[in-house]
């Protein structure tokens, strides 16, 4: 059997393999000529071609859905965090009547199944003239992302010892100054985590994107890739290439924000 000291590394290796292999396969398959896609695949591909990527950008103008997804996801993340964080701070720190009900209401919004909302929302957006526009996607996305942001950050702020802010206030900082100079830097890890989750949600969202956009000028990446499918054939190579390209911004964002998550910031402030 496997000696005990090798169990951990072996398990890690297997896990890594299970997780990374589909990615690897996706990338290599996207570089394989269409004709060879359904033959027995080789672990290391024999030939690498860029046809699919060329087709993506030359014929299908894939840069457009990418642009749309980036705009929508970035706007959603920014708005959700800008609105959600102060809301969470108020929920955690201030006392006012009906606070529990408000928090419950916020949670209730996120429990609504998207599919039941799509039709009425479509009608509303059409009346307001927001079909096939950026706001038409950003507004519903922010609505569904806010509950998660508020809940995550409220929990975080509650866990932050209020004594540090008390100390800042006694030191002469007003409530706002204390929040900005003391609480905010400490909240950075939570903000980063929330931002990642919101970005991923907005980037991968399909139902609303499909329903509320009409033209390629506003369609996002998931919708665009789904629409590659023709009446008689499915361009697997291009779909795979599209999926690879769609993964890149997500990986970049996660890596960039991961560095900001510095844990143990609060371990030195409070004894124990």
């Amino acid at each position, binding site marked *: 059997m496997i000696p005990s000291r090798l169990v951990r590394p072996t398990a890690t290796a297997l896990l890594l393999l299970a997780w990374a292999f589909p990615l690897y396969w996706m990338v290599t398959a996207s570089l394989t000529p269409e004709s060879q896609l359904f033959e027995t695949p080789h672990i290391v591909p024999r030939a690498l071609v860029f046809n699919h990527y060329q087709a993506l950008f030359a014929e299908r103008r894939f840069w457009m859905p990418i642009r749309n997804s980036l705009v929508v996801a970035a706007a959603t993340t920014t708005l959700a965090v800008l609105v959600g964080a102060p809301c969470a701070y108020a929920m955690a720190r201030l*006392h006012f009547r009906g606070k529990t009900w408000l928090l419950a209401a916020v949670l209730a919004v996120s429990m609504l199944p998207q599919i039941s909302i799509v039709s009425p929302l479509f009608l509303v957006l059409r009346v307001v003239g927001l079909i096939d526009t950026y706001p038409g996607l950003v507004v519903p996305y922010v609505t569904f992302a806010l509950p998660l942001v508020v809940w995550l950050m409220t929990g975080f702020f509650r866990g932050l*010892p209020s*004594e*540090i802010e*008390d*100390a*800042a*206030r*006694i*030191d*002469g*900082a*007003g*409530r706002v*100054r204390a929040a900005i100079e*003391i609480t905010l*830097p*400490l909240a950075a890890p939570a903000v980063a985590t929330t931002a990642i989750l919101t970005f991923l949600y907005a980037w991968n969202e399909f139902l609303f994107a499909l329903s509320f956009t009409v033209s390629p000028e506003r369609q996002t990446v998931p919708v665009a890739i789904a629409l590659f499918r023709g009446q008689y054939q499915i361009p697997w190579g291009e779909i795979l290439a599209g999926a690879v390209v769609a993964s890149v911004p997500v990986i970049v964002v996660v890596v960039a924000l991961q560095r900001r998550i510095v844990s*143990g*910031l*609060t*371990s*030195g*402030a*409070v*004894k*124990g």
Partner: protein
Amino acid sequence: MAAIVLDRVRKVFSGGQTAVADLDVGIANGERLVLVGPSGSGKSTVLRLIAGLEAPTSGRIFVDAREVTDIPPEQRDLAMVFQSYALYPHKTVRENLAFGLRMHRVARAEIDGRVSATADALGIADLLDRIPAQLSGGQRQRVALGRAIVRQPQAFLFDEPLSNLDPRLRGETRAEVVALHRRLGTTMVYVTHDQEEAMTVGQRIAVLRDGRLEQLATPLELYERPANTFVARFIGSPPMNLLKGRVTRESGTVRIETCGQIITIDAVESQILFEAVRAVGIRPHDVSLTDPQHADLRGRLDVIEPLGHAQIAHVTLDADVRVVVVVRTETPLSVDSRVGLAFARNRLLFFDDAGRRLD
């Protein structure tokens, strides 16, 4: 430097509990006052009210003759040292010390000067560029102290600053805090739950229970002349022995009936209204073990606690009444032996049915 006055201050929290009830306390300019009491007595709440972190439900608070009841904490010019230190975790020690001065718009050069001087005085000058996570508990405590000192505030507020230190460090730091006060002369309000800490630190002590002031006096007065049974048992260790009983007086002789036995005291000149007495108090240090034949009370020695510098003997009188006696280490004691207790006559205290001490 400022005098602090609490005028009929009351604090009721939204859950309904009264944390502080009609408190009247005057702290003199430059005084070192300790707020002591068991958990839940409201002492930390009082400190937070003075600091401005809580607003009183009613009553007024004055700092240096100026009413601050409605003034937010950032404008009260007070400095507080927290039990958990509450250092800014993302700032260096230098930045932690400088923060308050920056908020008060002190000139950069002066900030640097004061920070260096304070750091030197506290022995943390070589830690200035570290962040709190890299410091030990004692070092963090010094930084917390430094952050308050560097501000040169009107008064210091200490919220159980030594509770998180290990016992050995506590004694040293306690002495340093007192020395600091002597050096700076700034008014100091110090909260603790430890009666020994209160006695050693306070020039005057306010004993609190359930939000009410039980007694405000010097340490010695609290010890010798406690206002009631609560203060009598709270101050002093081991706690004072309280024996339920009645007292009768015939001319100069007083007879105390307690625990089924009678103590006779001759030549009593005191003016005390003995008919009102319901309990008698005597401190463990004022009781001595003696031959049961000539003793005031007789009982069985149950437990011996050797401390090294003394022994603590627990004597059971009848069913559940215990008397604690502090005995010299040299005295031979054996458990379950029958012993006699002798009370120092001039150290007996008498309390009425409400627990108030009779004079």
